[in-house]
């Protein structure tokens, strides 16, 4: 059974009198433990697909199954709960909060987990050690390099042990050496059992994935 199944998904954006069809009867299966690249031109719906998978955006019609169960997101709070328990997100420009230290940026992934404060701290530190960034814990994201920032972002994404990691252009803002380091981290996470979906323009990123889906613009 697939971890994620999208069945006959339709998504149309309306702007004034004009309509833009992003998905029409779109189907997608993502297997547990897989690493999938989603490619396509700008406007082909890559980010919309990521938003739907993350429960941030909703399809107009069709079915979204997670572990075989329909994902029902009637209220904003349903999406928030769904995301909190199942999804880890990584974006191109890291999405770190500069006023928090690197450690707090990682720890914040656990603020709503229900764990005690000491457990949150312990787990955040473990993940930072695993990614080799424990030495940066007191530093502000403002003084970190691009690679360090993305490691902190990855640490935050995985700290709550999500079922799936959704990454939107995770290496888009990095130089090639740093890109390789981040790709290696993602590869290691995948080899350790994490399911990963990566939206990318980069063939090199797609090349480390077990599967590539190319979206066409309607």
């Amino acid at each position, binding site marked *: 059974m697939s971890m994620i199944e999208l069945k006959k998904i339709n998504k149309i954006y309306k702007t004034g009198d004009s309509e833009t069809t992003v998905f029409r009867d779109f189907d997608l299966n993502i297997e547990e433990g897989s690493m999938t690249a989603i490619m396509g031109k700008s406007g082909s719906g890559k980010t919309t697909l990521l938003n739907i998978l993350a429960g941030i955006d909703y399809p107009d019609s069709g079915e979204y199954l997670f572990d075989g169960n329909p994902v029902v997101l009637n209220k904003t709070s349903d999406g928030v709960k769904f995301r909190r328990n199942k999804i880890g997100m990584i974006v191109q420009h890291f999405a770190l909060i500069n006023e928090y230290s690197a450690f707090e940026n990682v720890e914040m992934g656990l*603020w709503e987990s229900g764990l005690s404060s000491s457990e949150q701290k312990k787990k955040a530190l473990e993940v930072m050690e695993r990614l080799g960034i424990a030495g940066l814990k007191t530093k502000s994201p403002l003084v970190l390099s691009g690679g360090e920032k993305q490691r902190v972002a990855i640490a935050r994404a995985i700290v709550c042990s999500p079922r799936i990691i959704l990454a*939107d252009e995770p290496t888009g803002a990095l130089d090639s050496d740093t890109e390789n380091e981040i790709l290696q981290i993602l590869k290691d996470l995948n080899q350790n059992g994490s399911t990963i979906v990566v939206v990318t323009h980069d063939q090199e990123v797609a090349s480390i994935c077990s599967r590539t889906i190319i979206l066409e613009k309607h």
Partner: protein
Amino acid sequence: MKFIFKSIQRSFTSQIHYNMVIILNLVFSIAVVFILLQNYYFLKEKHDEFFSWDHPATTYQLSLDTDYMIQYLSDGLNHTPMFYSGKEMIKELNSGNMKTYNFAYTSFAYGDLKGSSGYDFSGKLDEEGNITGVYLSPNAFEALGLKLAEGRAFTQDDFENFDHGKAESVILGSNYSGIFKTGDEIVFKHEDVTDKAVIIGFLEPNTVFGFFGSSSADDILIFPGIYTSFPREEQVDHETVERMVYTDFADSSLYCDDPSVDVQKEINRLTAKYGFYMLNAEPIDGTAYSETKTVSERNMFIMLVLAIITTIIATVSVGGILYVKAIKDRPANCIYLSIGIPLWKINLAAAIEMFIYAGVAVCPSIGLSIREYGRLLIPAWQIAISALFIPAIGLLPLIFANRKCNLDLMIKEQT
């Protein structure tokens, strides 16, 4: 809870200049609203105190121009032709529907007043340990709207009783009616002279006294006084009495129950007729009373309207700043949303932060009020509402801005 604390901490430090503007805005606007409301309540308190009693008549205060005062007093002492002319004018003035009168408060120290029955007045002492008495000139009883529950009013004889051996007449407040009866005597010592007074009547219960009925008359003793500066320690002759009646006239109150009479015009006519000094008749109730009441009501209305307008301006201003702040905070809020923090919690953190600022902002106003008045004139719940209203409504644009947070926006705003 950890998120709310961290979010407030981040919001405070990351946007400190906006927060300072918001806090200053709240401090000043809350202070202005606070002062306006405080003045409204203060005004209302005084309004209710002074304007709850409808005086039945129109009363004026007569006054002589100070330039003529020395000459006027000299006329009284030397019995100049003006003195006789003035006496005639006073007589004519009081013969129509206008009456001049005077009243003066006096007080008896405890022990200087006793009932013939042995009653010692200890239960009727005022805050300073005295018993209040009032001297009323002829006409004053009627002009002040006093009414008797029992007995009789003062007659001309009562006012012309200058012999110390003969008992004066006295009318008592209603609270004495269970203690004395008409015909009983009280003995009093006034300015080293011991005198007797016969009780001739009692006032109606709940009688108020003064131009605006500002004090209760239930415990007072009313004596006849043909003039306010009655030298009770001396035997006086008729000539002295006449001089003092004349002297008191220029400082009399004037009662006229006919609203169609133009009092100043009538006074001018009489002074012209007798070649007397020019007298001013300043209304102190009736017209002035109703005008003052109207002004007071308008002032209260203006205070309230100003408080409302200030609140609206401050709310719009704070709302605008909060909207800009929310736009600047949106990337962080999008990140919070992406890691599973619900939007309501993000808004709750912003609301708590604002209410903390409002709590801080109201302190100077409360502190100043307590320092100046020793108490809060405004009820605590109204302080809370006025302090919380501005941030509560001002938060709406922020909530609106936060509704637009999503991953798309996060990605766009990060690039």
